[in-house]
């Protein structure tokens, strides 16, 4: 049975006359890697800041670990690790000193050994004595994850953790998040507008747009609601299109590029199309079903 870790109900926040978040509700269960999706300015950061008591909501309720955030703030934050947008540190202090400072007020008595182990975990071993002002953005991001995990929280909230990172940095952070789930069984809330990131990492998600939660559910189930796009690379694509259109007039087939065609169809139709083409002597070089979160996201956002 799913155990809810975060329950957000009808959350709203106004800045002056601007309503940044309007009636957002969602639930994060224990062990989830929960994707928090939305275009820029959708209200993701405002909602996450409300979860961490950086911003006071105007309406609605937030319960974390079964307790109301408004009345159990310290108790709840004791068990949360987070990075908001980019982890900022005291540049004039070393990485170790920064971790010591944040660990001291995170309610943990982290020893020098714990700090060394955590630096090793995020791949910063040997850089602990260096001042943070000399760190690259990727190194700061990894140090941010070390800071997040040092007090061994059960819930980790990461707001745009890959912003500004190069491709290698994105892969490193993504792998770190996956290790948190697989090796440490943490619950992770991941806010991002990088759809591929959410698709790879998250098992559940909510999409918010214009301050409202639009849809919530399992990533796989939501993506599978989408129509399948089958891309086939084959010999003689023009004649293949004619053949498919003649046999299955209801299908929409188009020449994508080079020798690749694309067909929008149901999953059950894939073997039939494959059989038809092979039977008529077409050489199939590749056959790839495409069903992307990106398409689903765009559909939801445009509705």
């Amino acid at each position, binding site marked *: 049975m799913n155990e809810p870790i975060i329950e957000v109900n009808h959350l709203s926040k106004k800045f002056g006359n601007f309503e940044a978040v309007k009636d957002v509700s969602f639930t994060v269960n224990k062990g989830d890697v929960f994707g928090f999706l939305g275009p820029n300015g959708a209200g993701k950061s405002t909602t996450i800041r409300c979860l961490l008591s950086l911003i006071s909501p105007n309406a609605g309720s937030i319960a974390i670990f079964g307790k109301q955030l408004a009345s159990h703030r310290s108790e709840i934050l004791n068990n949360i690790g987070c990075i908001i947008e980019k982890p900022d540190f005291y540049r004039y202090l070393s990485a170790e000193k920064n971790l010591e400072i944040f660990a001291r007020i995170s*309610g943990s008595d982290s020893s020098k050994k714990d700090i060394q182990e955590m630096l090793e975990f995020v791949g910063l071993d040997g850089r602990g004595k260096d001042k943070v002002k000399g760190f690259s953005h990727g190194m700061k991001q990894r140090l941010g994850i070390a800071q997040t995990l040092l007090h061994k929280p059960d819930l980790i909230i990461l707001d745009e953790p890959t912003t500004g990172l190069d491709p290698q940095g994105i892969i490193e952070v993504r792998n770190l998040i996956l290790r948190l789930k697989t090796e440490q069984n943490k619950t992770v809330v991941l806010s991002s507008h990088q759809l591929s990131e959410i698709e790879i990492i998250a098992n559940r998600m909510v999409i918010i747009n214009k301050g409202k939660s639009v849809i919530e559910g399992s990533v796989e189930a939501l993506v599978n609601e989408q129509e399948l796009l089958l891309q086939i690379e084959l010999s003689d694509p023009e004649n293949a299109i004619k053949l498919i259109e003649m046999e299955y007039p209801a299908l929409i087939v188009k020449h994508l590029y080079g020798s690749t065609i694309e067909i929008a169809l149901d999953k059950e139709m894939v073997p039939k199309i494959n059989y038809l083409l092979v039977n008529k002597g077409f050489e199939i070089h590749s056959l790839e079903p495409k069903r992307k979160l990106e398409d689903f996201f765009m559909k939801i956002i445009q509705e």
Partner: protein
Amino acid sequence: MLLKNTYNEFIKIIAKPRSYIGLGVLTALILVILFAMKADGSSYISFVTASFDQTLSFNGNILNGNLIAFIILQMLIVHIPLLVALVTGDLISGEAAMGTIRMLATKPISRTKIVLSKFIAGAVYTLILTIWLAFLALVVVKWMFGTGDMIVLNSSGLVILQEADIFWRYGCSFIVAYLALLTVSSLSICLSAFAENSIGPIVSTMGIIILFTIIGSLDVTVFDSIKIFLFTTHMASWRSFFEDPISMKDIWQSISILIVHNIVLVSIAVIKFNKKDITS
């Protein structure tokens, strides 16, 4: 948690280069004054004693360490608030500018304790600055210029204090001077809670001190009723210990007003910081 974060605040203050500017500037200013006094102190003191030449005869070393310490304190008490605000004005707003305020405010420490730990750290820094001033003014100056009886020119006239009667007066005056500087520290921390950068609170603190000092020095009846409540009016209260007789009533009044200022300013900072949406 309050003590743990106060310890963190000390680590940050110690590591920041700007924390040493105050101590360095203070030392440099005192060295300049000492050089000036060593080089041409006699003409400086004759300017003060000239009006009494007809009625009084001064014997011995008038330009001694006790008098120079008084001159230093009188000259620098105007400038030290800037050195205090340079560090304390950055305590909250500097975190906002650096982005670390997000990290700090998502930890299981209450915002009230964050402000209080910064106030305590600021108070200790101000105390160190005051003790350094006292060390330079009393120990170094006396070592260079020797000791002796002290003459002080007050609005009521010339006061001559016996050498044995001076040390405790300095002790008390430094305590009151510290309280005045602590009020400056509280003011800049309070302004810091409203700002997102360090420059604003530092400049605003000095602006308020200049404004209040001007109001206090204007001889206009419309300001008479508020002068007593301005903390700048009481920043020179340390001088009262060099009067004879000492007006303890005035001193206690100044102490009370400065303490009330500290409480009110820190309370405003706590309320503001608790209500603040951290969006940076």
